[in-house]
């Protein structure tokens, strides 16, 4: 279960952050991700950032998948 999408954190004030979704914005709660930084992509579930999205890991996976042998 559990829908969550990666979005970019555009501002932060204490546990209150804002994320940008295209041209629209929404408040996001950072209680569970107090160390998130503006500019990070965070995974948002039910209005809360629950994890940072690691760019390096994402790139490495795509790299790995493009060399999968079959």
């Amino acid at each position, binding site marked *: *279960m*559990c*829908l969550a*999408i990666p*979005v970019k954190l555009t501002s932060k004030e204490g546990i209150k952050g804002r994320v940008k*979704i*295209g*041209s*629209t*914005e*929404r*408040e996001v709660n950072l209680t569970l991700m107090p160390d998130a930084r503006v500019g990070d992509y965070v995974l*948002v*579930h*039910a*209005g809360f950032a629950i994890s940072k999205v690691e760019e390096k890991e994402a790139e490495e996976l795509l790299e790995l998948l493009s060399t999968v042998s079959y």
Partner: protein
Amino acid sequence: MRKVISLAHGNGGKLTQELIKDILLPCFNNPLLAPLTDSAIFEVNRTKFAFTTDSYVIKPLFFSGGDIGKLSVSGTINDLAVMGAKPIFISCGLIIEEGLPLSTLKKIVSSVEKTARYAGVSVITGDTKVVEKGSADGMFINTSGIGIVPSGINLSLERVEVGDRIIVNGTVGDHSVAVLSEREELGFSESVSSDCAPLYEMVEKLKPYWGNIKFMRDPTRGGVAGVLNEIVQNQSFGIKLQERNIPFREETTALCELLGIDPLYLANEGKILFFVEPEKAEQILQILHTHPLGKKSSIIGEVVARSPGKVYLETSIGTKRVLDMLIEDQLPRIC
């Protein structure tokens, strides 16, 4: 059949169809109504007329890209436009809730006027009723419209055959997302703009190719997927859509991912699905691209022989899946 009316009876999906088939048609049935097209077509002194009616209930009354006034004119004009009819007159019936600020009413009425003027029609009759507080969400509007079907246009589902291409004149799902994200409990700022707009002018621009357009529908309630399902019902053909060719605005996609809803089932208020001859699809597309409301037009699918009565989607990863008719309204969800 359920014993009482639920909201889902009004969403354009399976229950709406049941309602029409089981309750309304047996009561009203006549040859002009029977085709269940967006407008009824009838002839007086060898002139073909189109006649349509629609009621508008929307919360909130004002949303990004429009309001109930603009919507009530656009929707009715578009129901005429998809029959190929040039709209000439509309009516405007207002059901107003006690307590509505006069300034709100003025704003909405002037939006009705402005949209009608833009679309080249006059509001020639109207009605006003006021109901007790709590009996309406601020305001409901009913509009009816009359149009003239010019010669040279011959639109009918019967003309649709395997190989025909399906074109949509721009991004899909924006209207519903605009309305949904405007609701305060979802907490979105500055939302996606609704696509709400009258489209006859765009249809008129396609005049050189009217003969090559076989059928048109506006994917309002039920969305692209819902309306295409209605179209293929009991037909000897199916429809295949290409996910990668369906235009979406990024924020519409994102909000839909976030709220767990499928934009293909969301209402559009400024879109037409054109069924066109394959040989002329590119030319028609080019003309649409020159119109401000058709810049992002795209050929999104075609009529196929396989799986009659079904709508298929070829997904972004090349697999196929059924796009069934919507059953319940989509609710924002988290899991």
